[in-house]
């Protein structure tokens, strides 16, 4: 008996690595601390009522934000571990298998569990407020999306201490990801963690398309809609076309592993190349899915902090929509070197270069907006300005990679690694950080400290160039991706050391930002006006933090940048006050079903990961029961009485 338990535990838990024992201890301590605090301060009820069951888009946004920052930490630690291993030749800090696991989880986490939720955080925090809406189209579904993401991410992260991490790269190419080469549960964690959170992402895509098309305040034609909302629409259109492909791809890979199917196997008529096509048909649009909202953020920030209307509004919208379409015609550039006809390569090389054109248009529009503007260099604007040169370099190296003959030289080298970090950090991370600094006061009611923020900013920025510029050179010098160690004779030592120093500088930047948040909670400048940046769009017309019903009276929109025009009209004395009449506000009720259902999905994933079909069956029954229960719920909304609205507004310093 005892022996059996010991046997089971030694395969179930990951053993034999001091780093992992350290993680075990810290996970257990953190869980104990959380349980202790919740119990001691009697916060269980509060947690359930206010957060776990909430359908308020702003709270869901905050939860996405917290989760994504935690994942940024985890993915960042992975990055630092890799850079330590590569800092000097012949280092034996990480074992080769462990190194494989770490570059796999770093990539997967950063794209799917850091960038995606941070993007959804911004969608949730901003879009309904910008549109003058009370909520998203489907609040219940929105909560479900969040919990599916959360439980999927937890399942994936669990692989670190239970069962073992996936180690076949962030896109899990077969045959490496087949049973033959990845026999443990690692790949199953990958498949189910992403599958579950992917269903949530798909639902979010549908939710925000309908929100943007149908929930805009009266008078806000699409031609007057703020650019961030346009960028979200573009991103969501890509989501609904790309994510079903991912769902199928992961399902097929799972069938190969679980049911002995022959989709991507080397034998039995399978075709590993088909996996590459499928995964990149999702994967390439995916990078545009995460970067286009950043373009929207920059557009808002540049206009606000230059005190000017955005230059070329229409061309901005066209550019984003063209990107949404063309991004689906570029996937094969990820495997130019794997052998196909010249005409296919030419098609994908040209379409890849074409995507650069609308992006270039946008960069010029931002520059022209700044031209002769009265620029104020607050944190959001700093990140925006830092983004432009970074992204321009990233774009240029991207075009270099798109030139097929040259790609035979760069393929899988550190040149490529430097390129995609340049566009993803310089575009996505800088963009989202700018957005978080910009909209933070609206959600939390205070600004983030400027001084600490600037320290963070400079460490990130200088660290970025110190880290990735040497990698371009290393690529030219023949260093390829996924090397876990190298000898002195290669001559790569100095540049690798410099790169590692840069990575740690970015880590220090992150620590400054965490410090900045902790400091600002107490000492940050409170936002009493609701409009701390002298903004242009509707979200700045309501108090900070925004009340749960957003707008006491739904605004009537007349102009683009309506709030700015209203302020101008007030200053000129041409503003006509509309008598505001309060009405009861229609709101959705909280629900525990999304949280419970996502937990059952977790059981499904965990069961399949270890091949425990009974557990997966229990999970499916639970998921199904939740859907059934929801279908029979008719009493799902309520009205906020006028008195309560008046009281809430008064407590926020508003008279209505």
């Amino acid at each position, binding site marked *: 008996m005892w022996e059996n338990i010991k046997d089971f535990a030694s395969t179930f838990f990951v053993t034999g690595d001091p780093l992992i024992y350290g993680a075990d201890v810290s996970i257990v301590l953190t869980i104990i601390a959380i349980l202790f605090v919740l119990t001691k301060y009697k916060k269980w009820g509060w947690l359930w009522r206010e957060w776990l069951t909430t359908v308020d888009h702003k709270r869901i946004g905050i939860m996405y934000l917290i989760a994504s920052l935690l994942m940024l930490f985890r993915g960042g630690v992975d990055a630092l571990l890799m850079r330590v291993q590569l800092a000097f030749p012949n280092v034996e800090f990480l074992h080769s298998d462990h190194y494989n696991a770490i570059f796999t989880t770093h990539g997967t986490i950063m794209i799917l569990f850091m960038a995606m939720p941070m993007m959804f955080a911004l969608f949730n925090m901003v879009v309904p407020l910008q549109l003058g809406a009370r909520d998203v189209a489907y609040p219940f579904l929105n909560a479900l999306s969040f919990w599916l993401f959360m439980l999927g991410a937890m399942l994936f992260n669990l692989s670190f201490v239970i069962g073992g991490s996936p180690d076949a790269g962030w896109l899990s190419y077969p045959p490496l990801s087949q049973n033959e080469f990845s026999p443990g549960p690692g790949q199953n964690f990958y498949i189910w963690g992403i599958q579950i959170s992917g269903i949530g992402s798909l639902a979010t895509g*549908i939710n925000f398309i309908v929100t943007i098309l149908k929930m805009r305040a009266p008078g806000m034609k699409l031609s007057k809609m703020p650019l961030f909302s346009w960028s979200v629409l573009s991103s969501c259109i890509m989501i609904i076309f790309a994510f079903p492909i991912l769902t*199928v791809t992961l399902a097929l890979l799972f*069938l190969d592993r679980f049911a*002995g199917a022959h989709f991507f196997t080397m034998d*039995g008529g*399978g075709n590993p190349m088909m996996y590459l096509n499928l995964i990149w048909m999702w994967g390439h649009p995916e990078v545009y899915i995460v970067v286009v909202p950043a373009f929207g953020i920059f557009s808002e920030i540049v206009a606000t902090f230059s005190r000017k209307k955005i230059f070329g509004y229409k061309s901005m919208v066209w550019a984003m929509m063209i990107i949404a379409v063309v991004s689906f015609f570029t996937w094969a550039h990820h495997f130019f070197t794997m052998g196909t006809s010249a005409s296919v390569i030419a098609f994908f090389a040209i379409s890849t270069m074409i995507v650069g054109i609308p992006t270039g248009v946008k960069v010029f529009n931002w520059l022209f907006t700044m031209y002769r503007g009265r620029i104020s260099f607050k944190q959001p604007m700093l990140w925006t300005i830092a983004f432009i040169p970074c992204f321009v370099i990233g774009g240029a190296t991207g075009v270099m990679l798109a030139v097929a003959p040259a790609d035979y030289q760069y393929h899988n080298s550190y040149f490529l690694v430097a390129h995609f970090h340049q566009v993803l950090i310089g575009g996505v991370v800088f963009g989202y950080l700018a957005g978080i600094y910009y909209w933070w006061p609206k959600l939390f009611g205070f600004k983030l400290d400027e001084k600490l923020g600037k320290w963070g900013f400079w460490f990130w920025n200088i660290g970025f160039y110190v880290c990735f510029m040497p990698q371009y050179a290393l690529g030219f010098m023949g260093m390829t991706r996924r090397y876990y160690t190298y000898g002195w004779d290669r001559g790569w030592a100095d540049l690798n050391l410099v790169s590692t120093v840069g990575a740690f500088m970015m880590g220090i930047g992150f620590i400054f930002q965490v410090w900045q948040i902790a400091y600002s909670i107490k000492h940050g400048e409170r936002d009493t006006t609701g409009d701390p940046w002298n903004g242009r769009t509707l979200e700045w017309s309501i108090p900070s933090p925004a009340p749960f019903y957003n707008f006491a009276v739904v605004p009537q929109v007349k102009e683009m940048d309506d709030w700015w025009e209203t302020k101008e009209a007030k200053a000129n004395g041409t503003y006509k006050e509309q008598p505001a009449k309060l009405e009861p506000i229609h709101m959705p009720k909280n629900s525990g079903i999304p949280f419970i259902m996502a937990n059952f999905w977790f059981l499904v994933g965990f069961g399949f990961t270890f091949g425990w079909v009974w557990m997966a069956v229990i999970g499916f029954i639970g998921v199904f029961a939740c859907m*059934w229960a929801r279908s029979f719920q008719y009493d799902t909304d309520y009205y906020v009485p006028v008195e309560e609205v008046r009281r809430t507004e008064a407590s926020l310093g508003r008279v209505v």
Partner: protein
Amino acid sequence: MATNHDHGHGHDHDHHEEHEQLKVLGFWIFVVTDCVLFGTLFATYAVMMNSFAGGPTGQELFQLPGVIASTFILLTSSFTSGLAVLAMNKGNVKQLIAWLAVTGLLGLSFVVLEVTEFMHLMSEGATMATSGYWSAFYTLVGTHGLHVTLGLFWMTALMMQLKRRGISAVTRRKITNFSLYWHFLDVVWIFLFTVVYLMGVM
């Protein structure tokens, strides 16, 4: 109308109608995503079409009469689900439930026929693990069958709700979405019948 508030009933009504229409639009977009899902499975099937790896081919094993029968059954069920919607528009709950029940029975026989077919194929030695072709076959046809099965459960829940609540803005929207889903499955099946079975025995 589920709310029992003592104010603004007219207002209340407007909001509901608006929200219900919103849900129909969302469901259309969901159907678009399902189209992409099936499109991907069809593409996979097309790639695997000749990957028999020495195993049996579709031409050897398919029995068209059964498949033609299930095609007719499914097409008829689409027709009866249309009649259900007509009954709903006339405001006749009893007729609506009755036509849904007919639709459900036809759907159930379709699923039974499909399971029988799968069992026959497996007994002939064509399983998921036989070859790339059969993996793609079971995944594509099975995903459609799974959709039909889920539709049956959904329909059962809707019939129970109709019995309790009659025809309201909410149940009307649910029936509209359901019938959209059911017709969509029919369209997918027509493609499936053509690409998998007709082209398979050609």
